[in-house]
């Protein structure tokens, strides 16, 4: 018997020993980061960067496949006991000797995860990880002239690139309200002093917002540069328009922050267009009728039980959008892994139910 087959047999036996649990349930108790475990990471340190940003040092589990500079990782953090997933750009270089990665997080107002990571996360905490992804990366062949156009925490993927690959001619235009709000400011100025970077800081609190039409004043040869831009939607929209106007759209790559696709309907009772994506059914729903009824009326086979919120026989993935709990008024927004009880949830704006 081959060793692979032997191992499979041994594992089968082990499964019989631990049934109804899996061997991994026990292994997780002692070694949650081992190879073969679900991908997780352990927070090892949190370093403040600015008043509202911090760098989180994470040791990823053995299954981590490594990232390319500029990519992001989705991380699942337990905030107030509830697991929430967010995507953050990786700010560490790809060849970090100790195998750790860093993400740099800016606390946004009312941001549950960002505030938790910046202000409350403690070393030793386990977080869930996905493999890194994203195509906001440098091409294999080093471009001759590069422009990094960033604003706020949009600097994070670019910092991952700056730390990873040394380029011959790089200009960075970075916008932040005030000097002290510039994340990585010391390091950037260090690069400038070493002549590895030319930097233009735009302080919007004093200079006003960056007017993209005047980019040429800061970087005269911007149109010749391969550009990577990351920041709020307004800036990126303006950039895309401007680059298109000048016929150099293909030189611009943008990375958008996670768009909030759906906002819960406000005050008026919500409601919206409901898509049952597994069956391809779409119907209009008001904000007061349980999605279970909406689905059944539309002929979708909906699992159900008590129809009053107690048996959990109706839980179904919410793939997009937001729903309102008819009992408490609580809004639940779609995120990977979020299940809702369709019998006590109504549409709070357009949503997508996996049925």
């Amino acid at each position, binding site marked *: 018997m081959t060793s692979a087959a032997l191992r499979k047999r041994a594992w089968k036996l082990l499964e*019989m020993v631990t049934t*109804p649990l899996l061997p991994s349930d026990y292994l997780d108790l002692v070694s949650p980061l081992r190879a073969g475990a679900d991908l997780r990471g352990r927070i090892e340190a949190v370093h403040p960067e600015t008043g509202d940003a911090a760098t989180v040092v994470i040791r990823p589990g053995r299954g981590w496949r490594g990232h390319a500079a500029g990519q992001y990782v989705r991380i699942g953090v*337990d905030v*107030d006991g509830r697991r929430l997933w967010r995507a953050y750009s990786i700010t560490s270089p790809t060849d970090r000797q100790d195998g750790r990665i860093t993400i740099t997080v800016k606390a946004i107002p009312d941001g549950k995860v960002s505030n938790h990571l910046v202000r409350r996360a403690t070393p030793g905490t386990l977080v869930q990880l996905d493999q890194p992804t994203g195509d906001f990366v440098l091409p294999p062949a080093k471009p001759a002239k590069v422009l990094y156009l960033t604003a706020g925490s949009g600097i994070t993927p670019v910092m991952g690139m700056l730390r990873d690959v040394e380029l011959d001619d790089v200009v960075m235009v970075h916008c932040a309200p005030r000097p002290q709000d510039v994340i990585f400011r010391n390091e950037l100025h260090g690069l400038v002093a070493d002549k590895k970077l030319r930097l233009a800081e735009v302080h919007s609190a004093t200079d006003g917002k960056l007017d993209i039409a005047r980019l040429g004043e800061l970087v005269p040869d911007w149109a010749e540069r391969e550009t990577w831009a990351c920041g709020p939607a307004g800036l990126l929209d303006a950039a895309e328009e401007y680059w298109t106007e000048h016929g150099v759209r293909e030189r611009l790559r943008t990375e958008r922050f996670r768009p909030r696709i759906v906002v819960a309907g406000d005050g008026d009772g919500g409601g919206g267009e409901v898509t049952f994506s597994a069956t391809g059914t779409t119907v209009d729903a008001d904000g007061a009728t349980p999605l279970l009824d909406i689905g059944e009326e539309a002929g979708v086979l909906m699992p159900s*039980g008590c129809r009053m919120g*107690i048996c*959990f*026989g109706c839980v179904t993935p919410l793939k997009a959008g937001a729903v309102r709990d008819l009992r408490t008024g609580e809004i639940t927004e779609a995120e990977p892994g979020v299940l809702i009880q369709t019998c006590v949830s109504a549409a709070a704006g357009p949503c997508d139910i996996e049925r």
Partner: protein
Amino acid sequence: MTAIDPTAHLTAQQIEELGRELDAIRDEVIADRGEKDAAYIRKVISAQRKLELASRGVLLFSVFPPAWLLGTAGLSVAKIMDNMEIGHNVLHGQWDWMRDPKIHSTTWEWDHVSPAEQWKHSHNELHHTYTNVIGKDNDLGYGIMRVDEDQKWHPAHLGQPLWNFLNACFFEYGIAAYDLELGKNLHKRRRKDPEFRARAKAVGRKIRKQVLKDYVIHPLLSGPSFLTTLAATFTANLVRNIWSHSVIMCGHFPEGVQVFERRSIKGETRGQWYLRQMMGSANISGSRAMHFMTGNLSHQIEHHLFPDLPSNRYAEVAVKVRALFEKYELEYVTGPLPAQVFSAWHKVFRLSLPTKKPEVMTPDGHAMVVVQHD
């Protein structure tokens, strides 16, 4: 069906007001649910796994009597924890809000011969929706016992103390059979129903796995301790079964608990539903350890009112619920475990014999029997 309706003094408005007050209690806990609760269930799960592992380890040497005793005790407790404080409550969706796919009602499987999926249907759905409604809630006597004066007596009921005792010893199998609705489904035609066959198959698979683990694999691993490990696992299963059966009997069977007629729940309002849960359940009083080992089903009343609130919150909720019982002059049935177990068994014995019809008569000469809320 008691002759005298203990809720007769409540007006319809009062019942709805009671419902609103209960909703408020629920909302308070939900708003406050968080990190501490998550840490609690994680701690319990990890402790249970460690205890089970350690006990199975000790049982490898169970030829030595002290090891046998220690291992058996540990395994019994571990199995009780798995079924009561963890399994039952996770499968109720009490921890779904954490969004941890590993501690979720849709993924959890327990140390029990009834597959989680089937148990969720019969327990969460049927029992919790139709609590104590005769003919709808099969938990009432599990279809093998007479638990209320108004159920017709049959000579077969004479044996019910024995059935109940056997059911206690092999409780998990009883539950599996009950989840399958075996009694109803063994009729020739139903037996062939593909859906029933699929479910029966799933139970078969689960039984095979459980039996293989407890009575073959672990004893074999113990080598020279084969027989003693076998005996230890059997004992642990027996202890767990009798314990959970006792706790569960205390939830709805003791004297003072009401049962309801099928037609009494037609068009039931939220307030009336709550009221039925209040009158249809009974608690066990005792120490924190007692509450823990019952999986907080000692707070059966609170659990039936709010089946999806995290079990670690029932104790604090109980104080407020009890105050409402007092305010609305309702009887909060509770007592220490031995008293409640005795009371439940007493009923099993009493009703194994034919009983007289209730004697309270309405003015027009009919027996007044129904607890009705409409």
